[in-house]
């Protein structure tokens, strides 16, 4: 059977976009979206749904799009996923729904992410709201089954897992209070992911929908400090913790204290949350200079590198393995290359070089070669003797991952954690304290937005079960 070619998502040209922070992808028109939607085979036994951590009925929303019934399409989508405009943009669909699409055997999979994004953006532009009955029909937790809706639930952290848990519990009719330590809700969606991949207006719009569900968001409210753990335990019938894995790791390279050396978290937070790319209109500054080196091979490294590029720097990504082992999404690597970012594979920093004022001026690197596979299954990088060389740099960003943030957990000693400091839970997110649930990166370690959302959804189910039996 002949399959039509997948319709690529229109985007800004690399020459244009490397000079601005506007979204790279421009999005489908209705015509393009429908043409792409028609490629869906409408499988009798769909394989895509099981690839989705929140189980969206993908063929159904696509079918309604083909039939030009966009309102219905949106309501199906929204009934499974409260943040479709966000997920359509940042989910790694290639490993999830699109990865399990049957069309992979014949050619390229349906561009499900782009369709999700199109339908959700269309609904926002046309003020279409979700339909509660549709939501209830598709939900594992049926509101009508819950007897006591007067329960109060606290959600700590307003990132993807917390937002999802809040939406699920809010829909049922519980009183939900969310607590955010920063001055804007959204967690990694606002401080981590850059504007050019996920516009902050999109995040704001999807979060603002929660107000209709009886969900109150308290910003500037760090639990354990502004409100004690005891107060939270006493005032709420159930608690969900979704505080992420936000503490940056440093590699321990000598010279890490030099001015101009950043963790990716700080670099991206300055740019995204604090809008340092608009300095001095916004007060928060950032150091860029002419040459920026980014260490790491994940999506965060790509985000940092592409942000630095947009601020006018010449950017090099230094990664200790080869391109094949890079954990970043292929699309992100492709975008970075298109925009003119240089890659130094099989390279690792050994020393940062600073001037007498403590400002970074260069990075001494060493070449690596790949040896035997390590516990992750990837071949272990080994330094090549006497291969040291120096890259000039005014700014260096370490994007080598994060670890469990002890900020809340240090105030919560009774909560059981594993040896890495992540919270131990059962499959419904329930922790060692029965009324306390957790999900997202603070349970699994750094993962994706959609996995955190899946965990938030599962924990909401767990909380409902717990409250029913309590």
């Amino acid at each position, binding site marked *: 059977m002949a399959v039509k070619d997948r319709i690529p998502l229109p985007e800004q040209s690399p020459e244009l976009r490397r000079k601005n922070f506007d979204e790279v992808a421009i999005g489908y028109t209705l015509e393009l979206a429908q043409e792409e939607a028609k490629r869906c085979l409408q499988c009798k036994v769909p394989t895509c749904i099981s690839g989705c951590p929140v189980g969206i009925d993908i063929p159904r929303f696509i079918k309604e799009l083909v039939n030009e019934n966009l309102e219905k399409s949106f309501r199906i989508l929204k009934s499974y996923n409260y943040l479709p405009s966000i997920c359509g943009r940042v989910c790694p669909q290639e490993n999830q729904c699109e990865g399990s699409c049957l069309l992979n055997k014949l050619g390229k999979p349906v561009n499900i992410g782009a369709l999700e994004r199109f339908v959700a953006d269309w609904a926002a532009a046309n003020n279409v709201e979700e339909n509660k009955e549709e939501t209830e029909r598709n939900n594992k937790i049926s509101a009508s089954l819950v007897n006591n809706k007067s329960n109060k639930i606290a959600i700590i952290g307003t990132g993807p897992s917390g937002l999802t848990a809040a939406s699920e519990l809010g829909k049922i009719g519980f009183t939900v209070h969310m607590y955010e*330590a*920063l*001055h804007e809700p959204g967690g990694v969606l606002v*401080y981590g992911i850059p504007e050019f991949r996920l516009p902050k207006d999109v995040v704001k719009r999807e979060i603002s929908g929660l107000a209709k569900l009886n969900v109150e968001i308290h*910003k*500037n*409210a*760090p639990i354990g*400090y*502004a*409100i*004690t753990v005891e107060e939270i335990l006493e005032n709420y019938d159930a608690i969900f913790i979704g505080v992420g894995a*936000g*503490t*940056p790791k*440093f590699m*321990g390279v000598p010279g*890490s*204290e030099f*001015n*101009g050396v*950043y*963790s990716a*978290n*700080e670099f991206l*937070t*300055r740019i995204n*949350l*604090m*809008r340092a790319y608009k*300095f*001095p*209109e*916004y*007060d*928060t*500054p950032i*150091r860029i200079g002419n040459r920026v080196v980014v260490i790491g091979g994940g999506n965060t490294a790509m985000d940092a590198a592409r942000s630095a590029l947009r601020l006018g720097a010449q950017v090099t990504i230094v990664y200790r393995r080869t391109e094949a082992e890079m954990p970043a999404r292929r699309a992100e690597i492709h975008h970075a290359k298109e925009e003119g970012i240089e890659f130094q594979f099989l390279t690792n920093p050994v020393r940062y070089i600073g001037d007498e*004022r*403590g400002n970074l001026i260069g990075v001494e690197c060493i070449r690596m070669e790949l040896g035997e596979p390590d516990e992750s299954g990837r071949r272990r990088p080994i330094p090549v003797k006497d291969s040291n060389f120096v890259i000039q740099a005014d700014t260096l960003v370490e994007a080598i991952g994060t670890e469990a*943030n*002890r*900020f809340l957990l*240090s105030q919560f000693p009774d909560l059981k954690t594993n040896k890495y400091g992540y919270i131990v839970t059962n499959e419904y997110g329930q922790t060692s304290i029965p009324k306390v649930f957790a999900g997202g990166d603070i349970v699994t370690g750094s993962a994706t937005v959609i996995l955190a959302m899946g965990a938030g959804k599962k924990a909401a189910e767990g909380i409902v079960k717990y409250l029913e039996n309590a």
Partner: protein
Amino acid sequence: MYSNKIISRKRLAKSTYEFWIENDMVSTHAKPGQFVVLRVSEKGERIPLTIAETKDTSFRIVVKAIGKSTYDLCTRSVGDVLADVVGPLGKPSEIKQYGNVLIIGGGVGIAAILPIAKALKSAGNDVTVIIGARTIDELILKDEFSFADKLVMVTDDGSSGYKGTVIDAMKEQVKIQKYDIAWAVGPAIMMKLASNVANEINLPIWVSLNSIMIDGTGMCGGCRTLVKTQEGEEIKYVCVDGPEFDGRYVDWDSFMKRLEQYREQEKLALENFIKQVGDLSWL
């Protein structure tokens, strides 16, 4: 009640102001040594400031106008609402009965030591307080330390009490009396020198580091500083591991260089601000 409204404002010295801000999350939870992070306006940066006192639903801070954000804050009036206030943050000071305690405050650091000194006095310590500034006019809050067992006031020009620096006074004081522990809060150079003096006599000394911060919750690592350990040096986050550290082990050289990180941008931001609002030398 976390309106973040300014309910009182008072000029303590040239470009130095005291504010009482309404926020009961802060006022009912703050302990000595903790700080808030605040944003004056929607486009503002997040700046950390030590909490000087709390009462009912509000808390007190003392601010010296140095950069754009602090100038902006100092020009605000009663009734104005700050964009954001978050806190209390950081580990509280370790208040217990030590015996003889020496507490040193320099400049606006005097406001930071006030709650620590009071709490240490209440815990049954014999408290010596040294406060210092350039001139008597800049010696803020000097009337609020009457609870101290001994109060030494120091000015560079001798306009009040002892003539010299707080470090000179400290050196003299430690010759007269044996201390079990010390606190020193003020400009980085003052804390460094006080730590050197303490190091010579093996006196543990808490200093409160005023690093550049963003979130204040351990998320960005911008406030990181090197602290010497037996194995070498360790990266510590001032916001969650501090803000107080034993000054004898702080790597002062790199700490002070990191404070200069945004000097050019800070200069530009202040120049722009003054262009916009006019002369501020009266502040």
